[in-house]
C-alpha cells in the first residue's frame, strides 16, 4: 500500500502494481493523473460533454477490472486511451443504428462533396495563434461525420497506422484511407472557410 503522501511522486508503474493488488487509492491517483486526457479523447470522438464524461468514467471502471491484462507493453495512459476509444466506437455504432436517415452514410458511399472540392492552395492556418488554431480545429471537427472524424482523430492525434485504425474501427484499410482522405480534405476546406469568415 502506497501512503497518500507518496502517491503524487510515485511512478505510474508502481501505482499500477499497487492497484493490481487492490489498492484503490493508487488507482484513484492514476485516474487523477490521466483523467483529462481520457476525457478529451472521449470528447473528440463523441462531441458531447455528457457522453464523454460517462464514457470516460466507464473506461476507468473497465480499466480497473482489466488491470491484470495490462503488462506494460505500452504506457498506462496509452492502454487506458485504447479502452476509451473502443468504448466510444461502440457508442458511436449504437448512435448510428439509432439514426433513421444517415447523411453520413450517404456521403461515404458517394464520396461526399469533398471529391469535387477545389484544392486549398494557401495554408489555412498561417499566422494563427495556437489557441485560436486549436479552437478552429475543434470547431471544424464538429462538422465531420462520426466515421470521418474518428479516422482523423485516430491517425492525427493517436498516431495510429492505417492497419491499426482498420482493426479498431472494424473496417478495411481501403475504407480507412478513403475516410481519412475525405476527412482531411473537408478539414482543409473548413479551416479555410473559418479563416475567411474572420
Amino acid at each position, binding site marked *: 500500500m502506497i501512503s497518500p503522501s507518496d502517491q503524487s511522486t510515485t511512478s505510474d508503474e508502481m501505482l499500477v502494481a499497487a492497484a493490481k493488488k487492490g489498492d*484503490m487509492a493508487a488507482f*484513484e491517483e492514476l*485516474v*487523477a493523473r490521466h*483523467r*483529462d486526457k481520457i*476525457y*478529451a479523447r472521449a*470528447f*473528440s470522438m463523441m462531441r458531447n*460533454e455528457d457522453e464523454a*464524461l460517462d464514457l*470516460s*468514467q*466507464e473506461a*476507468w*471502471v473497465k480499466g*480497473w*477490472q482489466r488491470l*491484470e491484462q495490462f503488462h506494460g507493453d505500452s504506457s498506462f495512459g496509452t492502454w487506458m486511451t485504447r479502452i476509451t476509444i473502443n468504448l466510444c466506437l*461502440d457508442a458511436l*455504432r*449504437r448512435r448510428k*443504428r439509432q439514426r433513421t436517415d444517415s447523411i453520413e452514410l450517404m456521403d461515404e458511399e458517394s*464520396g461526399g462533396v469533398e*471529391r*469535387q472540392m477545389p*484544392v*486549398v*492552395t494557401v*495554408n*489555412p*492556418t498561417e499566422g494563427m495563434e*495556437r489557441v485560436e*488554431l*486549436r*479552437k478552429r*480545429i*475543434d470547431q471544424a471537427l464538429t462538422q465531420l461525420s462520426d466515421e470521418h472524424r474518428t479516422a*482523423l482523430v485516430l*491517425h*492525427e*492525434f493517436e498516431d495510429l*497506422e*492505417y492497419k491499426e485504425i482498420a482493426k479498431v474501427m472494424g473496417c478495411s484499410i*481501403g475504407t480507412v*484511407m*478513403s475516410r*481519412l*482522405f475525405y476527412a*482531411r*480534405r473537408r*478539414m*482543409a476546406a473548413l*479551416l479555410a472557410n473559418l479563416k475567411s469568415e474572420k
Partner: protein
Amino acid sequence: MNKNENQLELKLQAYLDGELPTAELAALEELLSSHTELRLLLEELRLTSIALKGNELDLKVPETRDFYWSKIARQIETGSRRQETVYQSVSGNLWVSWIRRHLLGLTGTGFAFCLALLIMTPPKQVAMKESEMELASDDMASYTYNDQQQQVKMVWLYDRNSTESQAKDSSMMDSENEQ
C-alpha cells in the same frame, strides 16, 4: 472523377503518411514531378496534417477530482458486490447440478457409497476450460470474474443501456473436472 484518379489520390495520401509500398514510390514521384495539380493536393493534405498534429483542444474534465472519482468508485464497488453474489449463486448451482447428474439415478447403498467417497476424497485441482463467447449485440457488455484459487471463471452479461447496469440472468460458468 474516375476510380483510377481516386486510387491515385489515396496513394498520394499513403505517400504523405509513409505508408506507400516502396515499390510504388518511384512511379508516384515521377507523376508528382509532372502534375502540378497532384503536387497542390499533396501540399493541401500535408498542411492539414501539420495543422492537426499536436493541436487538439486542451480539455479538462468539467468536474472536481472527488466528484469524478466518486462515480467510478461506486461503479467498481457495485461490480465487486455483483461478482460476489453471482459467485455464491453459481457455486450453489454447481453442487445441485452435479448431484442431479451423478447421484439421482442411485438408490440406497449406492448413494451412501458415493456420498462417503465424496466426503473422504480430498479436493482435486479443477482445470478450467475457457469458452469463447460472442456478444450478439453491441448493447451488451460483459464482466469477467476469475478466481485463481477456486479455479473458477465467471462471465456475465448486462445491457449497457440499463441505467443501473443490472446484471442479467445470463451468468455463465465453465469448469470441468480433470477426471
